[in-house]
């Protein structure tokens, strides 16, 4: 993996978030406080703004910087959660790096390494937010995706089928939030009234996953 790719992925995510303003905003207006799009946009823009700076770092360090930047720009519930994700993923990847980093060089990671990093990120979200699957949060996308990712990577699947599957899993995760009662996050106060609405954080995670997968498949 090259830091270049991380930067390209961050830009793809930014574009996808910006293109889904109406969706994200109206989802959070329905069962939250309406700011999820603004929060995600602020975060995505902040990362795009430091793209040049990130280019100087090893992939794991770049991911950690992204985490710290998100932590100090997003705020809200999604800020510390997404920040925790990137910082934990960075930590796991760093532990798999054994060579001194040379600028712009590729750092060798297996699909399994990256899947482990992703899973560690999701685990950090679980720890930080004390939520789990079925609580109508971003975890309803992230946990199934992490599980699939680890499974497929250890089965030595090709990148394209992995991406296709993860994108599908993420979409199913989004849809699964629709019929749930929320027990974490702002929608937890709504009881039955949350039913019928998709969780905004789940949707934005799916968008981010799709953006990165699409990029990988195009490459």
């Amino acid at each position, binding site marked *: 993996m090259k830091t270049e790719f991380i930067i390209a992925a961050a830009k793809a995510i930014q574009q996808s978030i910006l293109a889904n303003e109406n969706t994200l905003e109206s989802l959070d207006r329905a069962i939250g*406080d309406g700011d999820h799009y*603004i929060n995600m946009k602020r975060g995505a823009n902040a990362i795009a703004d430091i793209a040049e700076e990130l280019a100087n770092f090893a992939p794991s360090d770049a991911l950690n910087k992204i985490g710290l930047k998100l*932590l100090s720009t997003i*705020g809200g519930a999604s*800020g510390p*959660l997404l920040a925790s994700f990137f910082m934990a993923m960075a930590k796991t990847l760093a532990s798999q790096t054994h060579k001194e980093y040379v600028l712009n060089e590729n750092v060798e990671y297996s699909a399994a390494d990256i899947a482990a990093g992703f899973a560690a990120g999701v685990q950090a979200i679980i720890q930080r937010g*004390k939520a789990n699957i079925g609580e109508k949060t971003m975890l309803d996308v992230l946990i199934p995706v992490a599980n699939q990712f680890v499974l497929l990577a250890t089965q030595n699947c090709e990148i394209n089928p992995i991406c296709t599957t993860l994108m599908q899993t993420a979409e199913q995760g989004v849809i699964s939030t629709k019929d749930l009662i*929320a027990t974490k996050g702002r929608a*937890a*106060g709504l009881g039955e009234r949350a039913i019928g609405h998709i969780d905004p954080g789940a949707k934005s995670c799916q968008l981010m996953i799709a953006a990165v997968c699409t990029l990988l498949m195009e490459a």
Partner: protein
Amino acid sequence: MKKFINHIDHVLIESLSGFAAAHADLVTLHLDPNFITRKNKAVNKVAIISGGGAGHEPLHSGYIGFGMLDAACPGHVFTSPTPDQMLMAAETVHAGQGILFIVKNYAGDVMNFEMAAEMLPFESATVITSDDCAVINSTYTNGRRGVAGTVIVEKCVGSLAETGANLAACKALGDKVNSRTASIGVALTSCTVPAAGRPTFDIDALEIEMGVGIHGEPGRRREAMREADAIISDCVDAILTDFKTRNFATSQQEALLLINGFGATPLMELYLIYNTTARLFKQHGIQISRSLVGNYTTALDMAGASVTLCLLDDEIKQHWDSPVHCAGLRWGI
């Protein structure tokens, strides 16, 4: 959206700057990361820091000053502030006795303050306010929201800290005040977040949102608009039921009654609400011996109000009555 703003990206900073300029005798504004501190740094006391999304003014910046907060960290409108703000604020106001964070119970606020506390090089404790009884508490949820009762917690803890009490004592008082406080809000209209540019929720001319949150979060239920007394009666019942559920006796209790406006409800109506609320609580044997009526924890331009009852004891009463000198609350000084 019709607001006195220049550009949505500058609302927060321009408003904070105006606040700091208007109260230059009381506070200092720090930018990037944003936080506000007392003009005169306190010495040798627990430093009390609160914070939360903007849009609830005077909460929290308006409660910085003698007898209340040492610093406040304002987030973007209705969005939790971030740990870097809290860390810098803590560094600036730390006065040798540790930091007490007062945090309204929202996933975002709790997690951001938690991360700050983990990174903090000082001893710290956190009081999480959760007075909103609109959200029926449950072990399955992340619990009740912190709303206008937060002002009472900040006032009392601020007063105690001023006496030189230690961190554990301040945290204990904060938790006690919070547990003895219950609130419920009603919205007549939605608020409009500047960056969103349109109302957070749609509401009919003949509807109200019972149990609304201070960010315009939906509440217990959408109801038909009725006369004030009928609406207030439901609020009073919700509060009494909440105390009962939590095993607090209310009969013969002395209490503080706070009628809080959400931003667009005139004082004339708030006093009308006070009138009915006080009468109903009295009918239930509660003795209202302290009152506060006005816009103390707002939700931008939402029309609506909340009722907060705090069951007093001698300690809480003493710290409520003690002198305070802030932009948003001042007496005895």
